[in-house]
């Protein structure tokens, strides 16, 4: 077993273990942490596959931003676990049967007989000066520029949707105009007035 293979099995083990732990964890915050571990392991496997840009993006976007917001939401919500579990048992048998059937079918179709190394050759290793990010950039802005732009439109919709659904422009709302507050000068707020203090005689 080469060093690469050892690494692969280590990362895969952590990937699977973290994914399982995430599913079975009772605490939502712990589940998120296990998911983060799973992301890290997946990113490491990608690095072994020479897809380092994807790996870093996975960490940057999912671990660095999406999961932070996830934790944020979990902290804000008081998730009632008992109500979540209430209907769990009644659906469990049916769910297990369906899951077992799907898993069996997928194992048949996606197993080694169809996608094994004899059927699909492993991709060749690149030379040491191969730059994943350069190749990706060239592809992304030429061949795949159309899907790339469409993805941008998709994100635009997400922004519009979020603002449309959340922003309430009711007239009776009290807001602070921070721009005004920040640009205030001392002389706008404080007037120094010189008053002649009356002396003892009252003049």
């Amino acid at each position, binding site marked *: 077993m080469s060093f690469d293979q050892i690494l692969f099995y280590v990362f895969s083990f952590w990937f699977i273990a973290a994914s399982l732990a995430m599913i079975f964890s009772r605490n939502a915050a712990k589940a998120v942490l296990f998911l983060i571990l799973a992301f890290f392991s997946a990113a490491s496997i990608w690095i072994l596959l020479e897809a380092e840009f994807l790996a870093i993006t996975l960490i940057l976007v999912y671990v660095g931003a999406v999961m932070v917001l996830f934790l944020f939401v979990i902290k804000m919500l008081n998730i009632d676990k008992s109500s979540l579990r209430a209907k769990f048992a009644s659906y469990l048998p049916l769910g297990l049967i369906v899951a077992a059937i799907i898993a069996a079918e997928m194992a048949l179709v996606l197993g080694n007989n169809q*996608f094994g190394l004899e059927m699909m050759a492993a991709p060749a290793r690149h030379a040491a000066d191969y730059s994943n990010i350069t190749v990706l950039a060239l592809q992304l802005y030429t061949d795949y520029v*159309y899907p790339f732009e469409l993805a941008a439109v998709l994100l635009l*919709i997400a922004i519009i949707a979020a603002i*449309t659904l959340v922003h309430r422009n009711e007239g009776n709302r009290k807001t602070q105009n921070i721009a005004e507050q920040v640009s205030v000068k001392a002389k706008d707020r404080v007037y120094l007035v010189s008053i002649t203090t009356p002396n003892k005689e009252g003049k």
Partner: protein
Amino acid sequence: MINTPLFDTTSLMAALPEIFLLSAIVVVLLLDLFLTKPFKQVTYYLTQLSLLTTGVLAFNLIGEPETIILGNSFILDDMASVFKVFMMVAAMVAMVYSRHYLLQHSLFRGEYFVLVMLSILGMMVMVSGHSLLTLYLGLEILSLSLYTLIAIARNRAGAVEAALKYFVLGAIASGLLLYGMSMIYGISGSLNISEIAVFANSATLASREVLIINFGLVFLVIGIAFKLGAVPFHMWVPDVYQGAPTSVTMFISTVPKIAAVAMLVRLLIDGLGAMQPYWSDLFTVLAILSIVLGSIVALLQTNIKRLLAYSTISHIGFVLLGFATGVITGYGAAVFYILVYVLMSLAAFGVIILLNKKGFEADLISDYKGLSAHSPWSALMMLIIMLSMAGIPPFIGFYAKLFILQQVISSGMITVAIIVVVFAVISAYYYLQIIKSMYFEDGDEAQESIPAPIDIQLVVSINAVLILVVGLFPDFWMQLALSLF
């Protein structure tokens, strides 16, 4: 190592309608921010203008030779252009109806029109999609805008529930579709529709490859059936139709269906045409289930939007039946049917919106009692629409059903044809029920005639009359539909 770029700016003219629409969306979105309340109508007029211009640009491209551009992910052919023109016309009509509804129920916001245009952009991408990636992205652009459009009436519990239900089920459907796409990509090694077609057609296909293609195919069919709302993937349709604001229901039930049919054509006929025997069987089952369930459950409805939802399900059954025949004339009949369905559905929702008043949704069948007495013209139009939907000659709905049945019989599926005819007759009952309550029952109270703006009255009238007029010359439209394949 690095491929030579396939990107060529001179070929972008073929995508001009899409490029124009996206630019128009951005302009309208920004402009809307600066419009004060008395000028908010400008957004509406600009939307109509953008849709009109896009339609004209798409119309000019009809007859162009088939071109594939943008890294083989965008196709321009007659089907794309004709569908785009139809979508623009339908969307413009829908916007005329929507404005009336939005003003009545104080939902008039600039974002509504921006989101509608964005969803149309998504549909155009789907119609012109020539790679799995663009088809999926188009679908997501469409779906995401629709979820938001439903939830735009966020003060109504029903609308929020409908949006959530649609979102969750739509996400599952997208997931299934993506799963199928990844199978097909995995085995064929290409995202490109024509390369997939070449792969699926090749004579040296090993049995394991056929297995995996079929595995992916099932997921694709499920994803498409979800989006079209065919039984047994129809659960979201009635709830979404009922819960959404009527103008959004109208939009969901019309234009996106064209795009979904286009996606079906691109994926299954253009891409996996070689697998036609496999997906035909799936479609036959889906179609029969849809027609049976759509016809029977609709009998029990008291809400007209819910009733139209079940009616949509059975119409979709007919469309799928056309594709199930597996012959070009059958595909033509299916495309003809979906366009006719859009025409009828638009008119039906148009009349419902026409009867809306401030704080009153005319969405119960009992609301239509005695309609002929106080607004005879609306009642007459509703009569035309219902008769057409029931498939009674000489209205266009009859010919749509007839063409499908002809193809079904000529491809030898006699049993299927008999089942379909029986349930078409059963479904006529609930359409006639509405007519009965309009003409032969008295209203609860003396309702005053409803004043609606002239533009919506005019457009609804033209729309309903078209159902009759087109019904007199069905062959021309059928030839048009056939010429697309």
